[in-house]
């Protein structure tokens, strides 16, 4: 068995970087999300925060629980944005667990590969460390028609089918686009889904990916088994089972297991693996399971003997076994527990939103090895060993649960007109007319009414986020601010000196080990970031040493700036030019801000000519890259020249 962890499913293939990903699950916790995004991008949280590039989108079940009452703050895991649910998400529990990922040689250029990950795990510490989970992934190269033609059509069909499923799930969420809503923060998600849809093979290729939006997973399993003969073994397991019946006999075969029994002949060998503390209906039935042809086993953790992990994986293996070997069969693994809502009902029948894959289980392969890799032990358990509880946390009943609180603003854009910078507010529909809110930007507080279109900012302000509170001062939300560069919640560090500003500007590309070790310190210390935005927090004093450094030797510093930037740009390889232009856009703007450049005004340094000269700017810029480079330079020139 491989020693791969859940996090390994998001690790980029050799030579590629994680570009953008969509993470779907019922639940998630911040530390695991941070590790996932760090592993996926190879970038530490400080660097991601400074860049402000959305690298991940998160869609979780929309219902409020004791653990989760609000959306993840955009500061919690820099680069990861949680999508806000709409009222459409009220119906059904989002229980599906998958990730769609794009990888490329650069971070913002065209992708070189797409990946679909289907797991039985949520993106939580509990799943990653304390539960037995299964994961399946497929990589599909992305590029020219020739490259695509070389990929396996079923792999392509899986990715495209998953993207189509995700689109339907995201109909329940607020996913704006630049064209429709003037908000750009989800544009990279739309691009990802478009790319996944593009690789769909010609019709007739049946994907292994299945879901419950149109019908139950059980139906998909039945369809996959149609025409298969000689099936004589079943091995299944689940983190949850249907609850014990409230009245009547409790020793009858649980109905989901009965449905599985119906897929194989009566004399087939059948094994079900159950966690002792969450056996549901199996607890009352285990003692007479043998009469129904079942062996009830406990799970086995192959890694931890002491304090073993709890079974959370959901799987069904049905095959033809002979002389201790599985010769052929199918394996379902995915989010759907062996419960009514997870497996027997689809969303139309008021089941959960589930997904999974049904894989051909090729052989010959030792049956015992197959069981071991599915965490099935040889140890049978009886009713005495089992608790009739169900793991309510794994599949909560959300029929009457309220939705989580969503912020009143869908998004905020930083704009500028002849008067100065302002925030353009995009309100969520359905707010009460006249409802009052307080918008906090740094230490400034503005009282506004719902529907107000803009909030004026002081000259030179460029906040990464704003906080919004209802008039009563409770329920503050942190909203990411989009800027001209389509960067979101960017928080570049303020330089304390000219050298520091140059070091940050030229800190490109990020070292390959950045995500591994760069900012463990920051990880531990910046969790409570929003505290710094509270109006009572002292206003950070921006050191003016950069301005003083430039003022002392304006010409020398200008030459140092141009020399170092020119030399650095000349070394940027062509495949990283998209990333470099993105980096320059953010860092030039944030490190060399207008008030600091006073001393360069009127001293006659030919910044424009130098920065745009063919020998100075990066070689081999594509037309789009050149346009963006020019606009970055023009903005910098304005910062230097405008009073």
């Amino acid at each position, binding site marked *: 068995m491989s020693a791969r962890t859940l996090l390994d499913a998001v690790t980029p293939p050799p030579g590629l970087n994680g570009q953008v990903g969509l993470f779907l699950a019922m639940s998630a916790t911040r530390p695991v999300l941070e590790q996932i995004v760090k592993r996926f991008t190879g970038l530490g949280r400080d660097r991601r925060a400074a860049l402000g590039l959305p690298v991940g989108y998160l869609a979780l079940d929309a219902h409020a629980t004791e653990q989760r009452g609000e959306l993840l703050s955009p500061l919690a895991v820099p680069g990861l944005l949680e999508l806000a649910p709409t009222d459409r998400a009220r119906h059904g529990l989002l229980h599906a667990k998958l990730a769609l990922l794009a990888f490329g040689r650069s971070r913002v250029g065209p992708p070189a590969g797409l990946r679909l990950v289907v797991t039985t795990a949520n993106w939580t510490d509990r799943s990653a460390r304390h539960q037995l989970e299964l994961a399946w992934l497929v990589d599909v190269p992305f590029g020219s028609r020739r490259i695509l033609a070389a990929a396996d059509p079923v*792999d392509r069909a899986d990715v495209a089918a998953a993207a189509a499923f995700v689109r339907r799930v995201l109909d329940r969420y607020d996913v704006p686009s630049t064209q429709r809503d003037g908000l750009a923060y989800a544009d990279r998600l739309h691009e990802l889904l478009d790319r996944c849809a593009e690789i769909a093979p010609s019709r007739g290729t049946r994907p292994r990916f299945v879901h419950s939006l149109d019908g139950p997973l059980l139906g998909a399993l039945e369809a996959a088994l149609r025409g298969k003969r000689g099936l004589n073994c079943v091995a299944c397991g689940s983190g949850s089972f249907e609850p014990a019946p409230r009245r009547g006999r409790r020793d009858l075969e649980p109905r989901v297991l009965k449905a599985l029994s119906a897929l194989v002949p009566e004399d087939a060998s059948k094994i079900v693996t159950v966690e002792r503390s969450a056996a549901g209906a199996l607890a009352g039935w285990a003692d007479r399971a043998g009469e129904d042809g079942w062996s009830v086993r406990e799970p086995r953790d192959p890694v931890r003997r002491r304090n073993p992990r709890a079974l959370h994986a959901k799987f069904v293996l049905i095959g033809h076994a002979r002389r201790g070997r599985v010769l052929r069969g199918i394996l379902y693994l995915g989010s759907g527990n062996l419960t009514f809502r997870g497996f027997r009902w689809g969303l139309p029948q008021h089941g959960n939103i589930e997904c999974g894959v049904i894989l051909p289980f090729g052989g010959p392969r030792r049956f015992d090895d197959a069981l071991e890799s599915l965490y099935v032990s040889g140890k049978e358990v009886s009713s005495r060993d089992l608790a009739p509880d169900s793991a309510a946390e794994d599949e909560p009943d959300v029929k009457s649960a309220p939705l989580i609180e969503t912020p009143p603003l869908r998004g905020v854009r930083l704009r500028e007109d002849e008067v100065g910078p302002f925030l353009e507010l995009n309100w969520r529909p359905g707010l009460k007319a006249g409802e009052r809110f307080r918008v906090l930007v740094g230490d400034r507080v503005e009282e506004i009414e719902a529907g107000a279109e803009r909030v004026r900012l002081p000259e030179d302000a460029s906040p990464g986020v704003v906080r919004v509170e209802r008039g009563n001062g409770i329920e503050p939300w942190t909203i990411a601010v989009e800027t001209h560069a389509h960067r979101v919640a960017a928080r570049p560090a303020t*330089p*304390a000196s000219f050298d520091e500003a140059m*070091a940050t500007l030229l800190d490109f590309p990020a070292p390959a080990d950045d995500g591994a070790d760069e*900012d463990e310190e920051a990880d531990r210390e910046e969790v409570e970031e929003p505290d710094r935005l509270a109006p009572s927090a002292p206003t950070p004093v921006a050191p003016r040493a950069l301005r003083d450094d430039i003022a002392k030797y304006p010409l020398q510093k200008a030459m140092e700036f141009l020399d170092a930037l020119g030399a650095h740009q000349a070394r940027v390889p062509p495949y990283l030019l998209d990333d470099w232009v993105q980096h320059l856009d953010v860092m030039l703007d944030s490190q060399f801000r207008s008030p600091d450049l006073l001393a360069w005004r009127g001293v006659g340094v030919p910044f424009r000519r130098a920065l745009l000269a063919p020998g100075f700017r990066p070689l081999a810029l594509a037309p789009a890259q050149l346009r963006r480079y020019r606009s970055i330079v023009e903005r910098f020139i304005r910062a230097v020249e405008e009073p």
Partner: protein
Amino acid sequence: MPTSSASTWYAAAPSEGRSERRSLDLGLRPALRHFTDLVVPGVGRIWFVRQLSWAVAGLKLSTEPGGNGRRHSASSCALGIEALACKLAYENGAQLGRVIGKRAFARDEANPETRSFQALIRREHYVVNSYRARTVRALTSTGSGGRPAGLGLAHGPRFSGMVLTPAGDELACAFLDFHAGRSNVREHLLRWIGGGAIPARSPGLCRALHPQTPSAAERKLVAHRLVHVDTPDARKRAALARLLVRHPELPSVSGIVSALRRGDAERRRHADEIDLAFAFGAMLEKAQRLIGAVTVAMERSVSVDAAVLARRAAVRDGLAALRQAALEYARLELADPSRGHATAHGFAQRVEALADPGLLLFLASRDGKVVRRGDSGEIARGALFTTMPLVDLEGEADDDGASDPETNAGGRQFGLANLHALARDLGAERLG
């Protein structure tokens, strides 16, 4: 011609990394940081000189091309130097007190390839939690987010983007220019980073890199930054360091406080701050122990009514102890509220105001991981529930990576244990 499917499935091994359980901080982490900065400002988690030397040397070498003409990131260079120092010390078998990564080194003993730069910067050949990752706070020259500046050895908030200050550069040179055999440390390291070999059994090089043998020049420079700079923070550190360095073992807090009280007004104010910090620490510890008692009481139940729990003897005792600690914190804070922290103040107020069941529910809401507030107002097991008769404040150690005297001292020391170790490493004569 399409290739065969590139799909694969696997049974997931448990992930590495820090457990969420470690953050049994009840939302008080900002206050914890505040009080640590109040007691020992600017030192972060530094406790011996070479931690700083390795870090600044990494920053310095990242600006110089290695033997193969390539430059490596500052974090790689610093991590590599630290890992090599530990590996050579391990292989030479002497003074292993501060050597980490021993488990990986033992595993790699038969494989000489693992002494290369490229290998040693990988966590599987060294550790997950390096000393390097703990240096950022101490290196900085400017404060941020209301936190004090460090020792002023580098500018910049992020390690890889840091630029050495003149003082940092001097420390890097003191470390790198030290001679070990025919070459100095810089030449050895640049060759090694560029892909060259490193002498396996060179006592000279081992000593030049070793965590326990900083040179006199390094000690002098670090001592200067720690205590001889004229800022209020440095004066605080100086008074404490001079007091602590005389004691082979960390003295008791009451001893430290009474010694400071004999000093001038600034020292007396510092003594009050230490008292307040430790009162906060006691309040947090009592709250954590109370959660421990609750988990023991819930050993056989998934959820329990808070009123029922509050009647259990151990829980009742825990509640009383927590209230007492909160009262003491509030009393000390009242003397000068500006030294307190809003989060700690609010917590203490709730502890005082709530009745027993309400207080248990409040704590369960603040934690949410080990125990949580159930949907019907009862106390329920959280996702990371485990019985904890004595609450492990930092959780289990999951590798043989960096720990510090602070962690090993038992109970929160608010930086005093680290400063004590650092002062001892510097020597009394340099702090004078």
